[in-house]
């Protein structure tokens, strides 16, 4: 193995194709985006250099600020839900269901493999109010809770709640599995020893399981936050960013700016901001994890 890894040709063979694809599909477009962010114009009429104008424009753009705030709020709620419920599921798999957890794990993982658009369609129907009640409003109607019947997707406050519920539901199976695999790596002897020392339930989770699971937990948080900060298709399919632009994350605002309004330069600037935002969040949690390990 050592011999192969010291062979430059072998390294080129292993890394080369992946690196080539990464450079062509990821790095070049990113660099291109950076260049566009200092320009303004359209593909047909050409571009002109505008310096830092696009970056200055960000802070005076109310729609950008609204999208940024929505995206952050969404990321906090959804990532918290995904990790917290995923963690609870992992604990249930490990300590209660044990070997019988395979069926439950499969069922809960099922939404992860469903197409986002199909899930969004299902939630649209679930929370429908017109032309007929969806399941949620029908149940409220049957329970005579008429005051609770409302256009869930037609008003910004409740649309946000529906998006959060949908994206937590879609991903908890995934985070449940990730954290479950982390839990499996904790030696049974440690758990047993802790129990003998009197650590039961909450104390066992708080003082033994969580610290040992922390590296996997941090990885899951980084995965989750990067996914939620860049949320796009679920919001597009469920609300289209509406009503108005009250449920519009930065990704959707960037897409509309670049491809509907044809402001490629400003759209690229928003994309660069989003990249930096994800990078900062990732670095923060890496730092947090490394300090913890040290």
């Amino acid at each position: 193995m050592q011999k192969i890894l010291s062979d430059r040709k072998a390294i080129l063979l292993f890394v080369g194709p992946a690196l080539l694809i990464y450079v062509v599909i990821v790095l070049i477009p990113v660099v291109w985006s950076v260049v566009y962010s200092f320009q303004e114009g359209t593909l047909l009429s050409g571009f002109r250099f505008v310096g830092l104008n696009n970056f200055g424009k960000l802070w005076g753009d109310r729609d950008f600020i609204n999208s940024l705030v929505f995206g952050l709020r969404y990321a906090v709620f959804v990532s918290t839900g995904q990790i917290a419920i995923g963690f609870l599921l992992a604990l249930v798999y490990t300590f209660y269901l044990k070997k019988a957890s395979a069926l439950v794990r499969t069922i809960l993982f099922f939404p992860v493999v469903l197409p986002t658009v199909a899930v969004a369609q299902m939630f649209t129907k679930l929370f429908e109010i017109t032309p007929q009640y969806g399941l949620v409003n029908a149940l409220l109607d049957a329970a005579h809770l008429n005051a609770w019947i409302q256009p869930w997707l037609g008003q910004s406050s409740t649309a946000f709640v529906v998006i959060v519920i949908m994206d937590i539901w879609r991903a908890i199976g995934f985070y449940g599995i990730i954290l479950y695999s982390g839990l499996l790596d904790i030696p049974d002897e440690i758990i047993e020893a802790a129990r003998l020392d009197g650590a039961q339930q909450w104390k066992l989770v708080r003082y033994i399981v969580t610290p040992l699971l922390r590296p996997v937990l941090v990885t899951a948080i980084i995965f989750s936050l990067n996914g939620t900060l860049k949320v796009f298709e679920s919001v597009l399919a469920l609300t289209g960013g509406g009503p108005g632009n009250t449920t519009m994350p930065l990704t959707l605002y960037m897409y509309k700016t670049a491809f509907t309004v044809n402001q490629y330069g400003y759209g690229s600037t928003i994309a660069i901001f989003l990249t930096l935002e994800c990078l900062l969040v990732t670095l923060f949690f890496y730092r947090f994890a490394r300090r913890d390990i040290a």
Partner: protein
Amino acid sequence: MKTNRFLPFMLVIIVMSLLLVAAPPATAQDEVVITYLSILQDDVGFNRVIGELSAQCLTDMPNVRYEREGINLDALGQRIDQLALNNNLPTLFSADSGPQLIELIDNGYVLNVEELFTELGIYDSLNPAAAAIAAAGVQGRGLYALPLELNIEGFWYNKQMFADHDLDVPTTWDEMLAAAAVFHENGIQAFALAGREKWPITRYLAAYANRVYGADAMVRVRDGELMLTDPGFIEAAQELKDMAESGYFGVSPTTLDYGTALDLFNQGRAAMYYMGSWELRSFNDPAQALIGTENIGYFNVPLVEGGEGTLEDFSINVGTTTIISSAGYNETVGEWIRCVFSQYGDHAMNTLGMITGFNVNNPSDDLPQLTQIVLENLDTANNAFLWWEAYFNPRASVVAGDNAQLLISDPGYTAEQYMTDLQAALDEGV
């Protein structure tokens, strides 16, 4: 050593894969493929007319193949830009009639329809009034859009429902609101509105504003003679907001899509429906119009008291802008265009009852009743106005639609705020 033999093998595989991906699909020798990139997804309306006529014409053109590709409106602009840059625009394609079309014209990507049709000897097949409307969106550059439809917009209503409640066809806005109130009190949704699509909401703003300021209202806004913050426009937004808050559009109209709103009207669950006459394809179809074609009536946008608009002013358009590309044009394509579009008006009218911007030389004696009603109304038209966003820049068009949803769903978003935000987007000039 093994690695050394393996490396060239891998490189060959990668290169072959890239070549396979990049290679264009094989076509028969000398075959001409005529492609139509259309935002109308299904084989209905003008898609159907062009498809049927093409099939007829291609019997004499064995080396020509016609293909239609559907595209979502949201993805259209980007796709057109990319295809234009690669000099690969399809023969015919849908396009927004705003700044992008002007760029395409200025950079020579598209053909002037007047010049082309004159050269092909079929310019006489175009209705001059429709051609003038089709040319209106490109700031004096000429005729570049094919007038595949000639639509009037206005309110379609359920005659039976009006009769059941002793209501006359409204001629003033207040009469229309009074009728809406009667329906609402009787548990009938007054208007079907596809608020999820956004543009059906802003149609009400254009309708009211053009009745207040006259048929040139939006042209005067474009030219800076009127501001959207002027009282008549704010009044238009307030009327729309009041209608929504009164429940005339039903519960949560912003979640209703186009097809569902149309079904509400066609199935007798809404009394009125603002829409263009392109929906004759649905109203003339007994399978879709369950209330019965004979039960559907039409009235023009009612008058606003003290306003400058008249009942001879109609919202008229030529439907989805369809363009002919210069890259896809050659002599064979010219023959195909001559064959298809010399018969277009007759075929559309006589098979689908569809009114187009092409002349009808051999009209059928048996036109659908609603088609006749639209033709009669078109005959009375003295002035035409376009839709709300017709002269807006792309940013203002987005703001107009997005914020119209807020206007009818968020009690805290005022009519003044809507028009102020929209005027600001217009002033950006992007």
